């Protein structure tokens, strides 16, 4: 346990030193702020609170940005150390391979959580002090921050897995980009295409639910855009309000974190040093 935290701490320290922490925080804060400042213009007509509009637009932005940042943080966790020769050294220490993998994960999710909380928090603070508070919608904002971190955790876990299965850093980078394209863009396009082509003949609702759970970004979307009435109205996704319970969605997202990590530890333990 101590070794895990030591490795996580070193990961955070390295993140601060090579300016990853400050960069991601600034990027997330800048985008969230711009949404807060610009996004409040068109709200009057639909009668939604500015906060709800911000939650919806911020969630859509997060789906693109957070997975990308998470993959950039994690894609070379193991393969990078391997290429630098520090992995061999690390393995010669009284540390288990599971501790190395989980330590890396904990360190990277700490960096991302810090950036998300501070970045989105700044935007939230501006909103809080700038507009009349619509107190009942603040929990939605909290859920947004929490699930954004969870979405980041999914992609960090996937990135760590990528860094274990490949033998070269360049391959890991390619695979990470491919994963991002697939889960963030291609999957949804293909799904829409399938639904249009099928015309509701053979794809049942439960099949669709299953297909949505197979993509972590869709689970995130379901939680944030349909999970709460006020938000769902604005997001235009009221019709989608799935029969999936919130707890099932959270469980699915957590499984998306746990499974790649478990697979990573397993594969790392099997492979030769």
């Amino acid at each position, binding site marked *: 346990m101590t070794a895990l935290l030591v490795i996580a701490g070193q990961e955070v320290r390295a993140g601060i030193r090579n300016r990853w922490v400050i960069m991601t925080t600034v990027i997330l804060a800048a985008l969230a702020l711009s949404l807060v400042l610009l996004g409040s213009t068109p709200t009057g007509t639909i009668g939604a609170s500015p906060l709800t509009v911000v939650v919806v637009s911020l969630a859509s932005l997060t789906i693109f940005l957070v997975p990308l940042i998470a993959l950039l943080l994690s894609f070379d966790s193991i393969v990078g150390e391997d290429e630098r020769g520090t992995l061999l*050294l690390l393995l010669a220490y009284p540390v288990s391979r599971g501790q190395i993998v989980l330590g890396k994960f904990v360190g990277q999710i700490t960096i991302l959580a810090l950036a998300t909380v501070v970045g989105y928090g700044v935007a939230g603070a501006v909103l809080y002090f700038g507009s009349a508070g619509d107190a009942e919608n603040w929990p939605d904002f909290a859920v947004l921050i929490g699930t954004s971190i969870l979405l980041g955790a999914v992609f960090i876990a996937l990135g760590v897995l990528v860094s274990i299965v490949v033998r070269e850093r360049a391959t890991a980078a390619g695979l990470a980009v491919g994963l991002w394209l697939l889960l963030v863009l291609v999957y949804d396009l293909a799904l829409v295409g399938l639904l249009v082509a099928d015309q509701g003949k053979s794809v049942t609702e439960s099949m669709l639910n299953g297909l949505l759970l197979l993509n972590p970004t869709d689970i995130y979307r379901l939680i944030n855009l349909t999970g709460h009435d006020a938000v769902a109205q604005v997001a235009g996704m009221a019709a989608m309000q799935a029969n999936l319970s919130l707890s099932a969605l959270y469980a699915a997202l957590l499984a998306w974190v746990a499974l790649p990590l478990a697979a990573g530890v397993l594969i790392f333990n099997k492979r030769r040093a």
Partner: protein
Amino acid sequence: MKAVVELTRATKRYGRIAALQDVSLALNPGETVAVIGHNGAGKTTLMKLVLGLIRPSSGSVLVHGADPAGRKGARVRRSVGFVPESVAFHAAMTATELLSFYARLKGAPCEKNKTLLERVGLAEAAHRRVGTYSKGMRQRLLLAQALLGQPGLLLLDEPTSGLDPESRSQIYETIDQLRTEGATVMLSSHALAEIEHHVSRVALLHRGRLIAAGDLPTMRRQVSLPSRLRLTVKHCMTERVLSSLTEEVTLMSRGPDWLEFAVPETSKISLLREVTAMPDVVLDVEMKHPSLEVLYHHLCAEEE
């Protein structure tokens, strides 16, 4: 005496290639053993086996009586220091930061880190980014991390490769110090002439097999390579010296006031007796034993 490291018929196969084959080797406490051999002879594989990073395909590896790749592997590794062949540390970190990271991983007290950096000659650069370090400084930092927690066993994989003479001698100085402190050291190297005087035993690997192991005098006796004897004699007296020698020797080269012979191991002593019996003619005697390098080439050629 209980061996610190004990390999018994250890074999490591990668697919159909045997990286190590039937290697039996024991390191006794306080010994410094050099593992030599060509690139790909199995030196690094041997170290990885001892560290428990890989398991032998057959045979056994014991460190302090336990299997380093087994469940008690972590405890074994706590008392082992390792210097890998090449490491690029995180360039933005300082030596102090890196050393305290590794100390915490090993459960060693961080207070001793300063003394450790002084010991390897990095005290002044301790707070500089490692990215600004020279190769020699990085290697010394690597040695410092291996010394964390005063390990009883040190594995050094080519600790001096690519270093300038000063850094090299500093590394050997540390190795000699460790020897006097009673640590067991296994080091691999290609700098045969250098390590000759710093090790108690040599293990020679060739294509994954251990073809010779022992201290240098024993190995010399086994291969019976001739030593070189150089005599400085009075001007123009070389003929007189040659005619008065009865021992069987081969004259290799000569000058007006010197002679050089190849002397087989068996006639070394009697030849010396004959030579020293002519103090009026022979001014100086210089004996050169076959170096580790010569032994190495001879033994490898025998294997081919």
